């Protein structure tokens, strides 16, 4: 039974992907979740996984080919799901068997034109140079996105702001106990394993979310689905000009030091191009941290289909008034929450922020 492995969606803002590398060849037996190659999107180079087991029957795309999300990239021989697969096969044939003139093909490749979107007007139903030239002019007029990360972010965020009724909360978190606890812990750790405040804050978020599942999940097809796991998205700046939010998958299953390493690795892989597709598509909540940049607070725009985004500003000393009314210098960080009003409201969000402070006051629970 043939199964067409589709170009995966590596994030809701991705509409096409370019094959950068194949790690499989015809005849290979592949397992579920095996990395089969890598794909370049607007954002980065990302490893892609197979979601099915089977034998590779045919690899449909060459390195350098660009296709839309959902279009077949390889054919697997698998068992089961007969009806569904036949439909897939039929659809994909229509795409793959497209007749196209040599020069039209050449120009289409140079301009990253998806042939499936081109209307063929040739004598034998083939795509001609004229058809490609028309597509290019349409693309340049209507779809200036694609290769440019800045434009992609712009479009994606515009959509988020248009669709999601955001609401915003801010709370100043007091970190004196936490900082003390971290310093104590780090005394016994080698530099590589030392705890970092941002990671500890992440851990606190992950634990706090357990009581507030309405903030952790996906809003799709007009309904909310909570996420079983915390796939913790982290906003990471990428050169020369952009930001990505890949997720640490199953972050709730990691202990503090594992999380520490995961965060470090994620940043490296994001900047150097070793992300796995699911890391870009399956984040369930995102944290953005502009503390390093000396910014006090940041109100993020939700990354659809997620329903909330948490912001941390810089950790700093501020005048703090204690219960006795005495002003002293205390460690603080401003935490913000932008959330989707279709799913939650301010009361719940306020409770979540209070829960955060509770956890930070009692670091042993982390």
């Amino acid at each position, binding site marked *: 039974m043939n199964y067409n492995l589709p170009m995966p969606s590596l994030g809701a803002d991705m509409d096409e992907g370019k094959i950068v590398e194949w790690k499989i060849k015809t005849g290979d037996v592949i397992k579920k979740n095996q990395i089969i190659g890598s794909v370049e999107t607007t954002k980065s180079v990302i490893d892609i996984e197979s979601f099915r087991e089977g034998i590779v029957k045919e690899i449909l795309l060459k390195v350098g080919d660009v296709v839309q999300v959902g279009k077949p990239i390889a054919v697997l021989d698998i068992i089961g799901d007969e009806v569904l697969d036949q439909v897939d096969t039929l659809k994909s044939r229509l795409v793959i068997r497209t007749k196209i*003139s*040599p*020069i039209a093909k*050449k120009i289409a490749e140079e301009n990253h034109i998806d042939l499936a979107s081109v209307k063929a007007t040739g*004598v034998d139903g083939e795509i*001609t140079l004229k058809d490609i030239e028309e597509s290019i002019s349409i693309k340049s007029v209507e779809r200036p996105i694609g290769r440019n990360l800045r434009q992609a972010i712009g479009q994606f965020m515009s959509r988020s702001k248009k669709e999601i009724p955001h609401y915003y909360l801010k709370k100043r978190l007091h970190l004196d106990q936490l900082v003390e606890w971290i310093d104590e812990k780090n005394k016994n750790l080698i530099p590589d394993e030392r705890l970092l405040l941002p990671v500890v804050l992440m851990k606190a978020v992950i634990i706090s979310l357990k009581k507030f599942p309405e903030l952790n999940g996906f809003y799709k097809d007009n309904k909310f689905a909570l996420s079983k796991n915390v796939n913790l998205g982290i906003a990471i700046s990428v050169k020369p000009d952009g930001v990505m939010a890949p997720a640490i998958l199953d972050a709730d299953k990691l202990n503090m030091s594992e999380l520490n390493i995961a965060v470090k690795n994620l940043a490296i892989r994001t900047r150097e191009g070793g992300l796995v597709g699911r890391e870009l598509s399956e984040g369930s909540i995102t944290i953005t941290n502009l503390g390093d940049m000396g910014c006090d607070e940041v109100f993020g725009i939700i990354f659809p289909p997620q329903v909330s985004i948490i912001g941390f500003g810089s950790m700093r000393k501020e005048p703090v008034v204690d219960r006795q009314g005495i002003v002293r210098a205390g460690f603080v960080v401003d935490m913000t929450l932008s959330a989707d009003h279709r799913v939650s409201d301010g009361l719940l969000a306020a409770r979540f922020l209070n829960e955060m402070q509770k956890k930070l006051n009692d670091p042993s629970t982390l």
Partner: protein
Amino acid sequence: MRSTYREALRLGLEEVLSNHKNSFLIGEDVGAYGGTYAVSKGFLNLFGDEKIIDAPLSEVGFTGLGIGAAIGGMRPIVEIMTINFALLAFDQIINSASIYNFMSGGQITVPVILRMTSGGGRQLAAQHSNSFEGWLAHIPGLKIFTPATVEDARFMLVHAMKEDSPVIIIEHAVLLNLIEDCPEVCADFNLYKAQVKKIGKDVTVITYGGMLPKCIKASEELLKNGHEVEVIDLRCLRPLDNETIFNSIKKTHKVLIVDEGYKSGSISAEISARIMESCFYDLDAPVQRLCRREIPIPYARHLEELIIPQTENIVSKIEEMLR
């Protein structure tokens, strides 16, 4: 100066015979009769019977004579009445003229000029209407020219006299009464360069000889519908001018080859193959060919017209390609 193709051939021949003291014309009926196509009319009186020699009906004999005379230092011009009869002389042309220079290690040159008419369209039936020039273009050592304009009829022979290898000039019988402007002198004449006769951007038509006027007419028809057809006159079938062909295809991306010869194993097949080898990624459609149908030419006019590509066929073929 306005001139017919026939008159241009005559003027060229007269110039050559006058200017080259070792030249002579030999062929069937070239003398007393004035040439089968009246090209050498009056030459016998003008040049005398040492220069204008009526040959017996033996193509292999008088072609061999011409080749031998060329080896011996003469500048013979051999007129073979039609390319159909040249078949009888193929052994001399191919097995002697084309290879002696090679076999003698360059010691022998064979500066013979063979003139012959080619093509159908004059109700001369199956044995007198062939277009075998593609066969001759197969042979290294020969140079094959196909004058399709009055200017080329006038000057090709004159410039071919400068060659020291065997040259075959393929004249076309239906062009004899063609009237065109013809310059009195032609300073920058290039024997080997194909000419773009019509400039266009939509499709390239490659042709030569008797098909050229039909292709030009077709391009004029198509221009009325807004189609800009580029027409290339090959002029020389061996060596082929790849550059002109390829440059045109890089511009138009579509090509039709119009060849009066049969399609199978023809010069059109050779051109098509070269385009595939060198211009594949510039093509927007498969290379197309219009050739004569693969049966002997019938005598009946309406049937003959069906066999040989006509202007209407060229127009509709191009319309199909540009649809």
